[in-house]
């Protein structure tokens, strides 16, 4: 696709998500879809983070730890210190990024399953910390968080007070979708920049990359910090939407799901985590009708997809194009 065609496709997606979907929902009256779409957008932001760590050749099963941290940072700042929610979102991201630098310095030296298992353990550490620390109020969780207030920049109200919104669901939907679009734009730019090619060199061969003078330790930390930043902001917004956060809000199962989203979408494609999250999430919701067989069908479909398309759903596009070129 040419640059113009790509840009047109992206703009069409933006219009469809910001105008088309609300219109369609208003016409059909399926307001419950707002919540699903909001949640899916948030999860895809966190999955995008996991995807970056995959891009440098690390299996990250610890994103739930950062999502949980982000959620708690935002919740504590909003409820205990009265900080504006809009300020807490980037703060939550930055706190997570800082934490990931501290944790990443030692553990990013690990590779393969060792890194995977340590990140898995870090998910449990975050949950147990949330249970044990006094400030997070233990297993009770933090409830009745206030809705996001107005955001004023230079006297102009950019975002209205969410408490006075006529359609709160639409508000949260637009917020998450805009953030998702921004996240994936950043991701696309990052991967197609000079740093992106350096990341790719880490994925292929760290020793070789190091031997031609690439500072691999520094790049690994950058990638991991960006990844955790995404996890943190998605967690912070999740806390605002559900107006609560518990130690069990994000668990090992979520970490595994973030990883599955990336795998299923395709590790070689920027839109992989986006496609994977939407397919998995909507597939899971659709299977709700199957009642007790929900998990059974879901896992069989997952295994089937894995056997047929081991390189992800987006690889279908590549296969077709290769056939057309032949």
């Amino acid at each position, binding site marked *: 696709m040419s640059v113009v065609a790509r840009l047109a496709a992206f703009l069409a997606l933006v219009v469809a998500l910001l105008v088309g979907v609300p219109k369609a929902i208003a016409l059909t009256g399926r307001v419950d879809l707002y919540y699903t779409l909001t949640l899916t957008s948030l999860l895809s932001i966190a999955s995008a983070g996991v995807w970056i760590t*995959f891009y440098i050749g690390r*299996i990250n099963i610890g994103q739930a730890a950062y999502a949980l941290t982000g959620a708690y940072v935002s919740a504590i700042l909003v409820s205990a210190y009265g900080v504006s929610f809009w300020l807490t979102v980037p703060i939550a991201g930055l706190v997570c990024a800082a934490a990931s630098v501290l944790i990443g310095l030692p553990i990013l030296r690990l590779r*393969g399953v060792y890194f995977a298992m340590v990140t898995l353990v870090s998910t449990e550490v975050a949950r147990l910390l949330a249970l044990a620390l006094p400030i997070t109020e233990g297993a009770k969780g933090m409830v009745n968080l206030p809705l996001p207030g107005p955001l004023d920049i230079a006297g102009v109200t950019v975002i209205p007070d969410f408490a006075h919104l006529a359609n709160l669901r639409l508000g949260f939907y637009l917020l998450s979708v805009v953030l998702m679009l921004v996240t994936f734009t950043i991701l696309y730019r990052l991967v197609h920049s000079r740093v992106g090619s350096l990341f790719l060199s880490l994925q292929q061969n760290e020793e070789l990359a190091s031997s031609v003078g690439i500072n691999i330790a520094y790049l690994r930390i950058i990638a991991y910090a960006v990844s955790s930043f995404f996890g943190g902001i998605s967690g912070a917004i999740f806390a605002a939407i559900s107006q609560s956060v518990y130690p069990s809000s994000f668990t090992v199962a979520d970490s595994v799901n973030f990883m599955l989203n990336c795998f299923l979408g395709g590790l070689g494609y920027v839109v992989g985590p986006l496609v994977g999250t939407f397919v998995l999430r909507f597939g899971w919701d659709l299977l709700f009708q199957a009642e007790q067989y929900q998990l059974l069908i879901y896992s069989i479909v997952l295994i089937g997809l894995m056997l047929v398309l081991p390189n992800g759903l987006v690889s279908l596009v590549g296969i077709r194009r290769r056939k057309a070129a032949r």
Partner: protein
Amino acid sequence: MEQVIVNGLYLGAQYALIALGLTLIFALMNVLNFAHGQMYVLGGFVTYTVYGRWHLPFVVALIASSVTLAVLGALIEKFLFRTVIRRSAREESTMLLAAAIAFLFDAVILLVFGEKQRGVPKIVDGVLNTGAIIIPYDRVLVAGLAIVFIVAFMLFMQFSRPGRAMRALAQDRVAAQLMGVNVDRYSMVGFATGALLAGLVGGLLVAITGVNSGIGGPISIKAFMMVMIGGAGVVGGAIAGGFILGMLEAVGLSVLHAYGDITYLVIFASLMVFLSIRPNGLMGKPWG
């Protein structure tokens, strides 16, 4: 204190047996078997059905658990893992497969056996009481059996023909193939043996703690930890990791009791510190 050490040894013997299966599968296939805890649970439920419901001897139940899981393991390796490893561009894809299999096992176990906690009648009655330590006889028996199985497994790996083939495979897949080892067959045997061990220990433990469909995930995480402590893919490491984790848990529960429920937080945190100092565990090969 003696009591704490005995508890630790008892836990360690079981944990080591769980970790052995996981590490074997990892060594042979480079697959992190997410479904290991679920295999354990399935083994527990098979023993529950055969011993608890049909009232057949406990030994028969253990054999039933082992055989069921071994067959399942072999089928999973042959039809799922082998296919994915061949077709996928990145070897991490096996992790997705393993996670999906874990989901599948969870779903099947929930559908077939329900969500209730299940226990079986005691296999032997009575309590060993020497004054300093108090331990029920059935725990002594289970720990003893676990140690017997560990020793049997090590002897099997060390001296039998399939054991030698599997060790060769773990060392160097290509070299083993060049020496005439049937790589496909022994991968399958290895996976089946790993699954068998999971089913065996599940069957053993149902006699003590019972089993329910939700414990698969936590068991997997514990097994991962033991393997990490000892070093992935090393038999000795898995055994060491199992006993170390069992000991840590027993000591932690008694020492940290006063500070609330933080034993696991401390264990997890110290594990992360330990791994950042010694990334390949106690005896693992670098970069597993």
